[in-house]
């Protein structure tokens, strides 16, 4: 299952500060009558790398989508960087522009070139001058190692390249928090590696990240905390070593035995 390279990951820069980045208290969400998230409590400090795992349908995507208000929660509180997420549109746009989000299917804009994909939001949301936005975009495209593709269109790139463009596009908004919803599960093994490498680099630079993934190698190397969800609830959370070697709950054991194939 794990295709992440077993390589040295420099954890020296990955410092967790006392500052709270995301605070979720007693949060509940329903889809119609279906209680999809139940009494979620989670505090994320700045600099944390949290991996969320759990069986399909357990509510992982819904949880991180609530954090940037792609889904509305019905009960409890979510605050991001000290801004309370309410139905006030001003707050929502502010939070969204500070929280980057990566999707399973990349969701690049197919009608725009790679460069335009990266400059669109800075120009129109942040009001960055075009020239400057392009410089920033090229900086991040270089960082994800595809500056030479800047003039191509998303449809001309491989999946791994597209996901790296998506990462660059998010970074161009200079977010302080990044959410990843199964960023590698639509990719072939070699491409998974290139995307995970990019994510590891981000982590090494101290980005606060919440990653929904089944890449347990990545979790071991990068995460400082692993959260296991089932049936809309947080069932167990722990440091990666402890979580994988010594799971407490039976559900976690069952899930790990399935996913790690013991």
């Amino acid at each position, binding site marked *: 299952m794990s295709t992440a390279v077993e390589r040295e990951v420099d954890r020296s820069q990955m410092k967790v500060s006392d500052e709270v980045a995301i605070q979720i208290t007693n949060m509940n969400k329903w889809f119609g009558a279906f209680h999809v998230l139940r009494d979620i409590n989670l505090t994320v400090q700045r600099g944390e790398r949290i991996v969320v795992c759990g069986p399909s349908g357990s509510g992982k995507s819904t949880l991180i989508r609530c954090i940037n208000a792609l889904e509305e929660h019905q009960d409890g509180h979510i605050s991001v960087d000290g801004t309370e997420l309410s139905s006030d549109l001003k707050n929502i746009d502010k939070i969204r522009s500070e929280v980057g*989000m990566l999707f399973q299917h990349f*969701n690049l804009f*197919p*009608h725009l070139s790679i460069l335009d994909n990266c400059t*669109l939001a800075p120009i129109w949301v942040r009001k960055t001058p075009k020239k400057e936005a392009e410089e920033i975009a090229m900086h991040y495209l270089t960082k994800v190692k595809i500056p030479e593709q800047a003039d191509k269109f998303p449809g001309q790139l491989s999946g791994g390249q597209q996901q790296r463009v998506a990462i660059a596009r998010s970074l161009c908004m200079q977010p302080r928090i990044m959410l990843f919803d199964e960023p590698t599960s639509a990719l072939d093994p070699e491409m998974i590696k290139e995307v995970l490498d990019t994510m590891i680099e981000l982590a090494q630079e101290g980005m606060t990240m919440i990653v929904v993934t089944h890449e347990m190698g990545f979790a071991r190397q990068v995460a400082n905390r692993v959260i296991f969800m089932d049936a809309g609830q947080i069932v167990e959370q722990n440091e990666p070593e402890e979580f994988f070697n010594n799971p407490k709950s039976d559900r976690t054991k069952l899930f790990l035995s399935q996913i790690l194939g013991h």
Partner: protein
Amino acid sequence: MSDVSYVRTKMLDEMAPPVSQVGPIRWARENLFSSVTNSVLTLLAIWFIYSLLAATLPWIVFSSFSANSLGECRTAIRDAYGADATGACWSVIRERYLQLLFGFYPSESYWRPILALVLMLVAIGPILFEGLPRKMLIFSGLYPFVGFFLLWGGTVWLPVTILLGFVIAYFATTMLGKVIGSLGAVIAAILLPVIWWLFLAGPVAYGLHAIVPIGLVPIESARFGGFLLSIVIGVTGIVLSLPIGVLLALGRRSDLFVVRTICIGFIEFIRGVPLITLLFVASTLLNYFLPPGTTFDIVLRVMIMVTLFSSAYMAEVIRGGLAALPRGQYEAANALGMDYWKSMRLIIMPQALKISIPSIVGIFIGLFKDTTLVSIIGLMDPLGLSTAIRANAAWNGIVWELYGFIALMFFIFCFSMSRYSMYLERKLQTGH
């Protein structure tokens, strides 16, 4: 083992392909005679084209240009090409082509529609082709007023004051936004110009005209006709139905109940009623609802009806394009912090419109051809005129030449639109 080992000692030079692999012979073999069925079909098609040309070419060529009536025409052709020659009588086109183009527009003012047409080409150029300088779009925005002034004439101050309404709307949104909030600004941006147009624009225009009388001879709509009329109605319909259709499509998908209901009601009502009914409403019924004494130009009324009619269809086509976009596109736009209008304008609409190009152009072509329906309410479009011409004693009985000419003109317009849409689709192709 030595018998499987092989090393090339001499590299081969490149050679030209055999004759059967290049040029027209190869093309014909691959496309026309690739199989027995294909060969039979090719021969049948050749025979069909030959018979068609054999029947029509003599008719087109053995024709008369100079006669002044159908009878004269027939005699002239018999004299020239033999007793049983039957040729086309193009004389009717020669005699009436100005009428077919301009209707009863006064001939000393023909320069006005011609200039309007030329300027129109300049105005739509930058909209159709990205290569032209973007500054030209300013002229495109002004063109409706220029065109209106050229065609209908009257005082120059009327289009100027109407244009001022838009300037008022612009300032209401930009300046008032800070003072009374964005919703207030939107309301002001709609209300103020409407008040201006309804009550002030007219008197101000005539006041200004009294001081500085600049203008053209006014020409009333009843004199508009022929292709001038078709193009005026068709082009306004085409240009206005797209934006109105976009708004209706967005409204139909809106979360706001009132907006959604109004849009659905409008679309379903218009689509449920034949265009002819709407045209009759425009020509007769509307007068009952308007305050007595108001004269509301008939061509203007027809333009509004045709526009509303095709924007309902447009809305549905665009809604189809919107529905075809994956949800991820909306989510990615939102996740980057774009608000509703920004994500629609920059992400969603460009893609939805691109998907719908073939259907949109289909509606445009349909709309342009539907302008011929106005002959039913007595307007003198090319078909209305041809009826009038055929009623004339000199040309009584002429059919093919007139309708053939009109059909050819329509074909040129519609075929260009179709070619343009194919060009656009190719240009916007960003995949592999």
